[in-house]
């Protein structure tokens, strides 16, 4: 990266991005995307089984990060090996989030299972607000700095930097996804979940305890969310009580992109969304810099003397998730891998 710029190739007056920048954007996008994917699984599993968009799932992720923050912060000075501290932190976050996931289902959603569809949806928003403010009361409104105890090593791959934390995140996320796929497609519980998703009444008649299957779905989703929260906190080094809402919305978009209710779809959607976002934010500024187009540059005063006139900057990063969501809903409402959203929605 320290080398002088190689011979620039111009396409329509645009400098072609250096290869290392592109690769770096893809790596960054992949890391963020794999976290989105794990969160998206929580949305998609619940939707697949009870057709509820559990808007409180983002807050479960946030609470996972917060619990891990507290534990890691308390144990950081204890002299335990850093990896053990993080594992204990995650080990505490997972059961807390599972408890919240279970309580949420038992207290808020189960009583409304036969209510009109709008009632549980609004309840989900209510649960989300309650959890967010609970976190505000416990962890204060400040941005909390996640203790950086794991020394982050940077590896260079073809001109792109990848840190050990990024590698760990990728490994953990893909392991979780593989594990979940195995659970859903290879175990009795998974079979019961799929049966319930297809038709709860008939599954019940076949002797499946629907309540237990639904509770198990919430537990698994919350556990995945907790891990995602810990990973997110470790990656960015920050945690705040509001972090769940935007993360949740993006993961929800990822789930819709892949086809909500479809587990491989959520994984694909999450990873794609992360990459689209990184590339979009990385290149939109150049593409909409009117001064880089010779024809326009002559007519814009701001371009004089090497100035710039950027129409859309990288601050539109968060918008990409939602542009993708809208495009999918318009052109392929069932998502990339979804099959049967229309019939139940």
């Amino acid at each position, binding site marked *: *990266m*320290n080398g002088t710029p190689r011979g620039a190739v111009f396409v329509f007056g645009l400098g072609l991005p250096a290869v290392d920048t592109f690769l770096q954007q893809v790596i960054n996008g992949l890391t963020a995307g794999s976290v989105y994917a794990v969160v998206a699984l929580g949305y998609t599993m619940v939707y697949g089984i009870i057709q509820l968009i559990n808007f409180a799932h983002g807050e479960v992720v946030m609470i996972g990060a917060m619990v891990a923050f507290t534990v890691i912060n308390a144990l950081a000075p204890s002299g335990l090996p850093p990896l053990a501290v993080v594992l204990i932190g995650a080990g505490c976050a997972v059961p807390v989030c599972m408890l919240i996931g279970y309580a949420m289902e038992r207290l808020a959603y189960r009583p409304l299972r036969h209510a009109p569809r709008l009632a549980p949806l609004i309840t989900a928003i209510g649960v989300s607000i309650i959890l967010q403010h609970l976190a505000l009361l416990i962890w204060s409104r400040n941005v909390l700095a996640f203790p950086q105890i794991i020394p982050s090593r940077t590896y260079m791959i073809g001109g792109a930097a990848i840190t050990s934390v990024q590698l760990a995140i990728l490994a953990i996320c893909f392991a979780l996804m593989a594990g979940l796929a195995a659970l859903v497609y290879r175990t009795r519980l998974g079979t019961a979940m799929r049966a319930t998703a297809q038709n709860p009444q008939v599954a019940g008649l076949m002797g499946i305890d629907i309540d237990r299957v639904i509770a198990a779905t919430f537990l698994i989703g919350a556990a995945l969310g907790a891990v995602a929260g810990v990973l997110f906190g470790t990656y960015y080094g920050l945690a705040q009580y509001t972090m769940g809402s935007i993360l949740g919305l993006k993961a929800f978009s990822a789930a819709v992109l892949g086809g909500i209710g479809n587990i491989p779809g959520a994984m694909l959607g999450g990873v794609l969304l992360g990459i689209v976002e990184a590339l979009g934010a990385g*290149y939109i*500024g*150049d593409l909409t810099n009117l001064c880089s187009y010779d024809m326009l540059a002559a007519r814009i005063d701001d371009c004089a003397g090497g100035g710039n006139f950027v129409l859309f900057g990288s*601050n539109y990063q968060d918008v990409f998730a939602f542009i993708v969501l809208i495009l999918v809903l318009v052109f392929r409402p069932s998502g990339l891998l979804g099959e049967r959203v229309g019939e139940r929605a």
Partner: protein
Amino acid sequence: MKNTQLAVSLLAIALVVGGCSKETPQQGAKKAQGAAPQAGAGALEIKIGHVAPLTGGNAHLGKDNENGARLAIEEANAANIKIDGKNAKFALVAEDDQEDPKVGSTVAQKLVDAQVAGVVGHLNSGTSIPASPIYNQAGIPVISGSATNPKLTEQGFKNQFRVVGRDDQQGPAIATYLANERKPKLVAVVDDASAYGEGIANEVEKTLRAANVKVLPREKGTNKTNDWKAVLTKLRGRNPDAVFYGGMTSTAAPLLKQGRELGMKAVFSFGDGACEGEMVKLAGNAATEGMLCSQAGIPVEAASKKFLEAYKKRFNQDPIIYAPFTYDAANLLIDAMKKANSPDPKKYLPELQKIAFTGATGPISFDEKGDRKDAEITIFAMKGGKLEPIAVFKAGKVVPYAEFVKTASK
């Protein structure tokens, strides 16, 4: 704080009791006769509003600002000031604008409805500007201790003041320092698309260009961005010598940290929004080492000793950045009221316009726009996890800090 609350609640009880007694006509006449002289010699309650974010990522700065104003008001109450022949009892009405322009306007209206005599605030330019027409319409004097966007005092409002420097002074200050002392060939300018961030970034870019330093196309985030990797990766490809970011700590810290993670070696510089010790906590010691930043005005530790000691004693902590300024702002309101012998905004506003006051941050007087005359800007560098003042920018020139302190103490 408890004392003011107690005073307010006692006052409320007194009002309720007074109201009730009026409803009993037999006793009413006698009581009213007794109460009238008491009210004459009694307390004159003067409400002073304060607005800053008390929730969100910059709540600690909001609280710091509020503490400054609170200290001034408590001291004024202890001094038994007489205005219009009555004992003036000042009460602070503290509001939270959540750093949100919409909430800022709502809160401004709330203060106007509560008939405050003056307002100290808001903390952010982004909330101060939309709130200013509301105060202007009501004719209530407003003094900001920290809003640095030039627009605030460019609207022709006679009631709008500030005791800090402006971005069009602060931007040139840090940019001049960068250009003169660090001599970068290529600088990347990033902002958070807020009124403050964009304003200061524009000024930095303008000054750098004037000094013949190349500037990359502007990159933007939002005031909630915590993933800067896409932007930074792009910048890394262009290899700038320095990066300037216009934004607040909660977004500046991740920017700096992620830049270092990507292996960027550039000098990172910031405006006052990210010029505080919190940066070390959020981004770590290694990443923040050597960062530059500017603060409008003089460093906290250069505020008057009397103020620093009183603040520490009252709040059991040191002020962060702007508490000395909000302290001065509240004192300016009180001083103008004293001079006009009235808490009526119409009467004391002319006094405020021509005031010459020496506060915790040095001598203060206002120009015709309501800006502080000859405001200083200080440049800081991070050394070993601590921000150290390295230079002061005054009247277009950069003076090394040690030299400035010497001449200032004379």
